[in-house]
């Protein structure tokens, strides 16, 4: 996998990019809330780690979850859970997305706007989705089910449909949102005077790239 040798980072651009990721994560999560396990937080967490690095892999998932949880529970979408359950579930979902961001950092510098890279991010995102689901199922077992082997087993039986639809969500959103953000990361948006975050030397870019500037 080629590495991008010359990455000139502008903090302002990075912050703007991170804010755009947070916006996509929050809007997607709130709008899709009733479509259980269809969400855009996972993809923005993954992209934050992959395109922006460790600090943003922390900031983007936390900010997205904090804002969207506030919106969801304020608007009354979140059901009638007690504060203990809300905090407990938040621990598992928030740390789950932090872990996805961390997985994303392992791809930092390895992703450019070509099909192979987008396929790589999608594949890693699918694995991250399964890890996230297993982790949050442990939380579901702890907070909602008896702490027995039977309870643990039923939690994972009940996970099956959720995991299938979560994988479907990731398979839809990671290539879609990923391609858009990887393109902007690499090429910026000239019409809006937004310059790219990652800049490669001309000889690094060859004719095989799908997203030329």
């Amino acid at each position, binding site marked *: 996998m080629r590495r991008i040798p010359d990455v000139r980072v502008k903090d302002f651009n990075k912050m703007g990019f991170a804010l755009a990721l947070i916006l996509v994560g929050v809007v997607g999560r709130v709008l899709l809330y009733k479509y259980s396990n269809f969400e855009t937080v996972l993809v923005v967490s993954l992209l934050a780690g992959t395109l922006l690095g460790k600090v943003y892999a922390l900031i983007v998932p936390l900010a997205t979850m904090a804002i969207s949880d506030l919106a969801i529970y304020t608007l009354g979408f979140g059901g009638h859970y007690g504060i203990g359950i809300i905090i407990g579930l938040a621990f598992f979902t928030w740390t789950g997305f932090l872990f996805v961001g961390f997985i994303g950092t392992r791809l930092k510098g390895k992703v450019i706007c070509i*099909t192979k890279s987008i396929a790589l991010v999608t594949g890693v995102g699918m694995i991250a989705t399964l890890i996230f689901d297993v982790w949050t199922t442990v939380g579901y077992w702890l907070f909602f*089910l*008896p702490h027995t082997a039977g309870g643990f087993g039923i939690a994972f039986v009940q996970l099956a*449909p959720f995991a299938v639809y979560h994988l*479907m969500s990731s398979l839809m959103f990671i290539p879609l949102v990923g391609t858009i953000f990887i393109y902007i990361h690499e090429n910026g948006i000239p019409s809006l005077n937004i310059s790219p975050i990652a800049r490669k030397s001309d000889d690094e870019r060859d004719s095989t790239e*799908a997203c030329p500037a």
Partner: protein
Amino acid sequence: MKLGEIKERYKAILFGTVVVIGVIGLAYLGNYITGQPVEQGQVRNLQISIVGEDWSIDCTMEETTNNTVYRLLLECSEIYGFEVEGTVWQPYNAVFVDSVNDVENGDGKWWQYYVNGKYGEISSDRKQLFDGDLVEWRFELPRF
């Protein structure tokens, strides 16, 4: 168009095709796991028992077209004048019962159903009933 560009386009088309097939496959799998919607049909001699913490309601339907656990609960609620609240969750298109007779899910206790003593493992609106079935709704901690 350069050879590299043509190759990249083919890769993009191939990847897009794999994604579309994957999404369709997962949609079918999800639909298979969650169960198919039940068509309305006539059933006879159904019994339903709803057990709250310190109360219970019993209904017997000699003949009805409400042939799912959820629809039978709604029919019983109309007869006895109590409320049932449920949420339809997408993409499962399945009902989750939130409260019965003003008793809401919470503190680890949930409205759960049993048919002929067997714990309901799918959504109550997807569980089909047959002649002579006994349905129980219990507000309790999960029993497993």
